């Protein structure tokens, strides 16, 4: 294993980690408010294709990113409307959103498949920092979305744990009727959380088509939305732990294509099962421990709230 290939692995670990983290953070925020959104894969696809098409149209990568975020949030709003406002079953609505998002993205992106990108978000140049050995390429040579993911993580942690609105949001996820009695709009909080979550999933998708693999192909999200769902559990619904998990799962994604270079004789396909196996394990451990201590899962997760039926 050469130094260059080791650095390459770390660089890819951080960039894949950020990709997963953005989407996972969005899911985390929605789940904290009590809404399970299994539409991550669909929202990512919508963010990816819309950002790519916006870049082709206007040639401005930042505008394209914004489009990806807005489209992600709008896609999530479909789920928000049906689950938060109408009180529909969250599992069914979320999975339908995945199907809808993947189908819609494939339909609208049909004519731009294989086209060269209109604009890309190039790696940030941090000046002398970027020239550092190891830390330079791994930490200071990444695409802008990696730094945005870090910022978003810190912001999410701060808002959720240190602000009134974060407290209200968590209350909506733990006991909606309590939040309601306290004078908060459960519908507003939950809908907002779902929309913000969709925006982050859209950003993750835009990161794919604007930086990581700047092109559009049907199915290019390749199940990463499911890893994001897994990460929320793996990170026990905490932004910090989810970041650690994102680096771990990102490392596994990065390692997948490099196993042969490292001379390891394990099938990369079997390796890619690990995130899911780990998540099931963590879920079982959480449940066993929940006998003695409170579960980290939001208590009202997955349940609809109708004031009139309180």
């Amino acid at each position: 294993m050469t130094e260059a290939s080791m650095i390459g692995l770390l660089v890819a670990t951080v960039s894949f980690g950020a990709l997963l983290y953005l989407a996972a953070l969005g899911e985390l925020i929605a789940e904290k408010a009590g809404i399970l959104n299994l539409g991550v894969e669909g929202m990512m696809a919508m963010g990816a294709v819309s950002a790519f098409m916006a870049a082709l149209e206007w040639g401005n990568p930042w505008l394209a990113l914004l489009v990806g975020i807005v489209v992600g949030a709008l896609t999530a709003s479909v789920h928000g409307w049906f689950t938060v406002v109408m009180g529909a079953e969250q599992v069914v609505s979320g999975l339908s959103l995945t199907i809808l998002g993947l189908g819609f993205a494939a339909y609208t992106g049909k004519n731009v498949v294989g086209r060269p990108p209109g604009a890309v978000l190039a790696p940030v140049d941090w000046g002398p920092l970027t020239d550092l050995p190891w830390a330079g390429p791994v930490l200071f040579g990444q695409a802008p979305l990696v730094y945005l993911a870090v910022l978003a993580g810190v912001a999410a942690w701060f808002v959720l744990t240190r602000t009134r609105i974060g407290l209200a949001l968590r209350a909506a996820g733990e006991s909606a009727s309590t939040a309601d009695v306290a004078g908060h709009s459960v519908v507003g909080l939950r809908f907002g959380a779902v929309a913000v979550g969709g925006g982050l999933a859209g950003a993750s998708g835009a990161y794919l088509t604007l930086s990581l693999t700047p092109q559009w192909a049907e199915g290019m999200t390749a199940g990463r939305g499911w890893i994001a769902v897994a990460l929320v559990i793996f990170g026990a619904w905490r932004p910090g732990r989810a970041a650690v998990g994102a680096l771990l799962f990102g490392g596994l994604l990065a390692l997948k294509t490099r196993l042969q270079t490292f001379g390891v004789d394990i099938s990369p396909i079997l390796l890619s099962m690990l995130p899911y196996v780990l998540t099931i394990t963590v879920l079982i451990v959480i449940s066993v421990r929940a006998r003695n201590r409170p579960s980290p899962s939001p208590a009202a997760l997955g349940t609809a709230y109708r004031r009139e039926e309180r």
Partner: protein
Amino acid sequence: MRRPALVRRERPLRGGQPLAFAVGLVVALAVGYVLLVMAGHEPMRVYQRMWEKSLSDSDAWSLTLNRAVPLGLAGLAVAVAGSMGLWNIGAEGQILAGAMGAAWVARIGETWSGPVLITAMLAAAFLAGGALALVPAVARARIGVNEIITTLMLNEIALRLVQWLIHGPWKDPESHNFPLTPMLPDQAKLPTLFGRAHWGVVIAGAVILVFAVAASRTGWGYELRVAGSSAETARYAGISLKRKILTVLLLSGAVAGLAGGVELSGTADRLTEGISNGFGYAGIIVAALALLRPSGVAFVALLFGAVQVGGQSIQIIGVSASVSTILQAFILFGAIGAGVLSRYEVRLVAGRAGAEEGAAA
């Protein structure tokens, strides 16, 4: 201040669900119409072709029926678990597991006669589907682990197992390095019924019928409904909840696994990673639209089968097959909206002040 709110009707509107379903269909066709116009197609021509290729004559019906088989079995699997308030999101993976099980039997039983081989394949598919549901079932029954996430994760695991088999141990040595398994032997194919329809249609129909009867006419089905509506009542009635959860999730997985076996033996030439093609996820929509009733599942599966067959047929005239995916999702969303309105009505209710009164009461 008054605000609109959803208030539960004293009793749901009669015929609410069929009506909701029809509304969903109309909404989907309307949305599809706009999308097709925007992409420069002639919507009526596209819809007409979808109709002709899926429902207009017996050839078309045979294709639709074939499609409805995995959709119906997957929908039934979800409905069986759902009748007890459990979500089996893992039908997609269980279908793959079933296909792997059946493919394995076809490998070792190449020399067996057709009926023996096919029976063994389907039995293996049934068991393999159940086996994939084993961890979620035990974890849910014994320690209360949420089955939604465990079954979902196993979909991705099963998909990678299939990929690994195709790229590795089961790769055809004569495939010139393409990741393909050998073709199934001829006697492993389910015989045809009429047109392109195969015997899987009869198998799926029979399985759905058995469950429909079991759910509505037996003590077992009654106990499931009781356990699903209230754990407390179930305990009073002496129903063992743990055992019910275990058997229902295993059975649900097995039924989905059977779908994989039938799909392999009925319509595929060999095991591929695309053999499930999203049937497991579509099955969840099918079950939801059928309100988790087996008889409803058969009907919705037929409609979704027709939409999927129609969707494939329009590729030839230059329309993306993803139109059918979009239609399926909108049928559901339209029906959810209409379904909610059949059980709730929109009323103007008092705003803030009223809420506080309610809280005090």
